[in-house]
C-alpha cells in the first residue's frame, strides 16, 4: 500500500489530539469495534481520561481510587482548571492541554510544591499525593497566598484516608512561600 493510501485511511479515522505535559499525542478513537479488541483503536467512546492516561499512555503517576468523582485522587489540570479524570471522557478532551504529576517535576528536579510536601512530611502513604499536589497547584495558581481556611475549602475534594491534613496544609503554605520567593511561579 502506498504512503498516500495509508494517510488517506488514517485521515478517515477520527482522532483526539491531546497535549500532555507539553508533549503532543494523537490518539485514534473508534466506536465500531468490539470492546475485546483492545488494540484496534487507542480510545473507545466510553474510556475515561484517567484510563487513557494510565493504561494507554503509561502515565501511572496518576492514581485511580473511587472512580466516582468523590476522592480527588485522579485530579489533573486541564486548560488551567482542576478536573477529575475519572469523570471526564477522553473523547471530550480533543485539543486540550493537560498537566499530570509527571509534568511537574522529577525525583532529581522537584517542583517547589513537591519540594514543600517532601520537606513537611506532606504524606503518609502517598496514594492521594498526585491528586493532592495537582489540586495544590491549581489552588496556588489562582491564589498564591492562601490562608489555612482557603486550603481547607479548596482541597476539601481531595480525601486523605491517612488523615494527614495538618501536614498537608502546612506543606501547601510552605509551597506558597517557596513559589513567592521564586517570583510567583515556575
Amino acid at each position, binding site marked *: 500500500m502506498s504512503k498516500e493510501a495509508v494517510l488517506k485511511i488514517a485521515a478517515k479515522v477520527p482522532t483526539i489530539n491531546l497535549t500532555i505535559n507539553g508533549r503532543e499525542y494523537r490518539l485514534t478513537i473508534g466506536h465500531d469495534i468490539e*470492546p*475485546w479488541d483492545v488494540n484496534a483503536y487507542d480510545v473507545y467512546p466510553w474510556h475515561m481520561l484517567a484510563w487513557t492516561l494510565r493504561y494507554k499512555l503509561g502515565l501511572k503517576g496518576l492514581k485511580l481510587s473511587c*472512580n*466516582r468523582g*468523590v476522592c480527588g485522587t485522579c485530579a489533573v489540570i486541564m486548560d488551567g482548571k482542576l478536573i477529575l479524570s475519572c469523570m471526564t471522557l477522553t473523547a471530550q478532551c480533543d485539543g486540550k492541554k493537560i498537566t499530570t504529576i*509527571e509534568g511537574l517535576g522529577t*525525583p532529581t528536579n522537584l517542583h517547589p510544591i513537591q519540594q514543600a510536601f517532601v520537606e513537611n*512530611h506532606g504524606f503518609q502513604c502517598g496514594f492521594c499525593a498526585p491528586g493532592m499536589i495537582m489540586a495544590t497547584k491549581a489552588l496556588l495558581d489562582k491564589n498564591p497566598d492562601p490562608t489555612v481556611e482557603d486550603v481547607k475549602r479548596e482541597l476539601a475534594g481531595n480525601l486523605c*484516608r491517612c488523615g494527614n491534613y495538618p501536614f498537608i496544609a502546612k506543606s501547601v503554605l510552605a509551597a506558597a512561600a517557596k513559589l513567592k520567593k521564586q517570583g510567583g511561579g515556575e
Partner: protein
Amino acid sequence: MAYQTIPLKYIGKRVIKKDLIPVCTGTAEFVADIQFPDMLEGVILKSPYAHARIKSIDTSAAEKMPGVVCTITDKDDTILRHVLLSDVQYALASIAGKVFFAGEDVALLAAETKEVAEEAIKLIKVDYEVLSPGVFDPKEAMQPGAVVLHPEYRQLRPDLPDNVAPIGGPQSVYMRASRGSITDRETWKSGDLATKAHVQQGKKDADFIVSANYYTGAEAHASLEANGAIAKWDGDEVTIWSATQCTYDALATVTEFLEIAFDKCMIVQKYTAGSFGGKGMGKNEYLLVMIYAAALAKKAGRPVRVLQEIDEMNVCNHHSCGPIYFDMECGIKKDGKPTFIESTVTVNVGGVQNGLFLAAFPANAATGVYRYGSVYTESWPVWCNLPLSGSRRSMGDAEGMLNSERFIDEVIEKTGLDPVEWRKKWAEVPGGPTIDKLTWYTLAGGNYPALITKAADAFGWKDKWKGWGVPTAVNGPKRRGVGCALSLHLSGGHWGEDAAMVRINLDGTVEVLSSGVDMGQGLCSAMCQCVADVLGVRYEDVRKAESNSRYTPWGGGAAASKGTSKVIGGAIKAAFDARRQLFNLAAASLKVKVEDLDIGDGKVFVKADPTKFQTIASLANSVAGFHGVSQKMGFKIDPVTKIGIYEKSLAAFFAEVEVDTDTGKIDVLRMVSCDDCGIAINPDAVEAQIYGAAMFGLGFTMYGALAFDKSHEGVAINASALDYRIPSFLEWGDIVPIIHEDPADAPTTPLGMKGMGEGANVPVGPAIANAFYNATGVRMRNHPYTPDNVLKALGKIWGVG
C-alpha cells in the same frame, strides 16, 4: 550489648521519609500500576443472596463471549477449596455449595479487558435456592428459633446457643467458645483464675452499681487503594504482586489454598496505601483476591490481575468487629474505688469464619484500663449472614474502649468526682494485669498519670470543665461540652521480633532485609534511621529492601502496631550483629582489643587514636561482604510470676465538641492527643500518626458504620465510595499532638520504643462521646453519632438513639 549506649544521630530527628520523593513525583509503583502486555483482567461473581444453596452454575454463555479466556467454579478440578473452620477459612462459596452472606464469592472469570469481564460475568447463570431470610444481628442470631447457619457444627457444641462460633474450629473444640476470663488483683499473679465469687464480693463492696447496654456498628477500612493483585506463573512457580500488609501471612494462606509448597510462591510487596488492616492478617477478602489471581492465571496460562472497585471492596471486605453489643456492669465506692467490672460482648463474626480473634479482642477492651477490684469478661462470637468481622486499625480496642470509656464516664458521674482526677488515680499501673486474647499478662511500662496530666494541661481542662451536667457553653440550640478518655492497645503484643538481615555492601552502604511493610506509617525510614545509628553510617546510605516472601526473612509484617517495637526491633538486633562482626574484623586488622574500638562516620576507629581506623567498606571487602542477622524471638516471661510480660501503647485524649441540638450535627472543635511511644524515632512520623488517628477515630465515631439493610439481604447500603464518608479537610478542627517519651515505658524493646499508630486511634471516639454527654446531658449508647442518631437520642425524632 547495652542498646541504649549508642549515640543518637538520626534517631529522634525529623528526617525526610524515604518514600516521599517517589510518591510526590508519581514514580512510586503501587500494585495497580504494574502491567504485563498479555495480562488478563479477573473479576469475581458475588452472591446476591445472604443465605442460599447453590443448585447449579452455568458458565457456558459467558465462556462463549469473545474475549473471555476462562472461568472457575466448583466444577473445576479446582485448586480452590472451602475449608470452613480450619485456619484458612473460605474461598469460593460454590465449593461449599452455600452462600452465607450477600457478596460472597461464587465464581471467577478472566477476560482480555475489564469491560468484557464485567459484561461476561453477568452471563454466568447461578440457580440459587434461597434457604431462609438471613439473620443480620448477633443477638437475634443467638435467640432460640433463629436461622442456624452451620447446623453441622451445632452437634459439636450442643451446649452453646445457636450460631455461636466454636473458637478454633472442630480441631480445637477444647477451647471454650465463650471463654470467660476473670481475675482479681489479689490472686491473678498466682496464675489461678479467680472465681466469679470475686465479682460477687465487688458487688457487695460497691456503693453504686451501674449497668448499661451499648451498641457499636461495623466500620469499613475505606482505603483509597482498592484490593488488587497480579499473578504470573513461571512453570510451577507463581509470583504474586500484592499490597499485603503481612507478606508471610499471605504466603501461608495462598500456598495452602493453591496446594503448592512455600518455595513455589513468591509474594512481592513494595508500596501499600494506608490499609488499616484491610489487607492485613487474619481472614480477609484481600487474601482471596491474591488466590483468585493465581488460580485464574494458572488456568489461563497468562498473567491475571484481579483489581476490585472501591465499592466492591467496601461491600465485601471484612470490616471492624461489628455489629457488636456490650452489656456492662460496674461497681464503685463513694470515694471512687472501682470494685468490679463485668462485661458480656456479643459480636458478629460474619457468615464463615471461626471467630478466634473476634471473640477475644473486643472483650479484652471491654473492661477498660482501670484498677478494678475484680474483672469478669466474656465474649460470644456469633455467625450472622454478614461480611466478616476482622482487623481494622486498633482491632477490638477501638470498638471495646469506645464502650468501656463512655461507660466508665457514667460510673464516675455517680461519685461526682472530676473524671480527669479519677482517671489519674485509678488508671492501671506497670506490673498490673493486662488482658490479651482473654489471657492475663503483666503490663510492662506506661505512665497514665503523666500522659493525662500533659494532655489535660494542654487542653485547659481545669478552666473548661464546669462539672457534671454543665455544658461549657450554650448558644441557642448549640451546646458545647468537653470529654476525655484513656486507652490501651497492643504494641506488637506478645509476638517476638521479626527476623531481619543487615547486609553490609562492599561500598560501605547498608541494605536492611526485613518483611516489614510500610503503608504510610514511616516504618522503612525509621528502620533506616535506627540501623544508621547502630552502624555509624549515614541515613542516606541505608536502604530497606522491599518485602518479598522469597528473599526477606520471616516476619509478621504490619499488624498489631508491631512495626516499631518488633519489626524495627529485629532490624536493630541484626544491625548490632553486623556491628559486632565489624568490630571483630577491625580488631584483627588494627591489632587492638574490641573494647578499644568505636564506630562512626562509616569507620571503625580506635577510641584513643581516631586516626587509626578501617572504613566499613574496606572491612566488608576484606571478607567479600557479610550479613548481620537476627532471629525471630519468643515473647518475654516475667521471671518472678512466670506470666507473659509486655508493654502496651497508652494514650490520653481530650475533645471539645459543639452539638447543634436542632439539626443533630456535631462539630469537633478541638482535640488533644497525648501518646506514649517510648522514644519517637521520627517525631514527624509520630505526629502524623497522631493526626491520622484523630481523623480516623473521628470518622469512626461520627459516621463510620456500614448500614446493613435487613430488607436487602444485609447488603451495606452505604458502602459505595460515594456514600461511605471518610473525613475530609472540612472535618479537621484543631488537633494538638503531644508525644510522651520515656524509654522506660517500653522496657522489653531495644532502645525502648513502642508502637502507637493504632493506640492513638482508640480514645478518640469515647472522648467525643463523653464531650457529647457534657454538652447535652444525654447518654447516647448507640453508634455512630450521625445527626439522625443524635436527634433520636435527644428525643427529637422517633427511634432508639
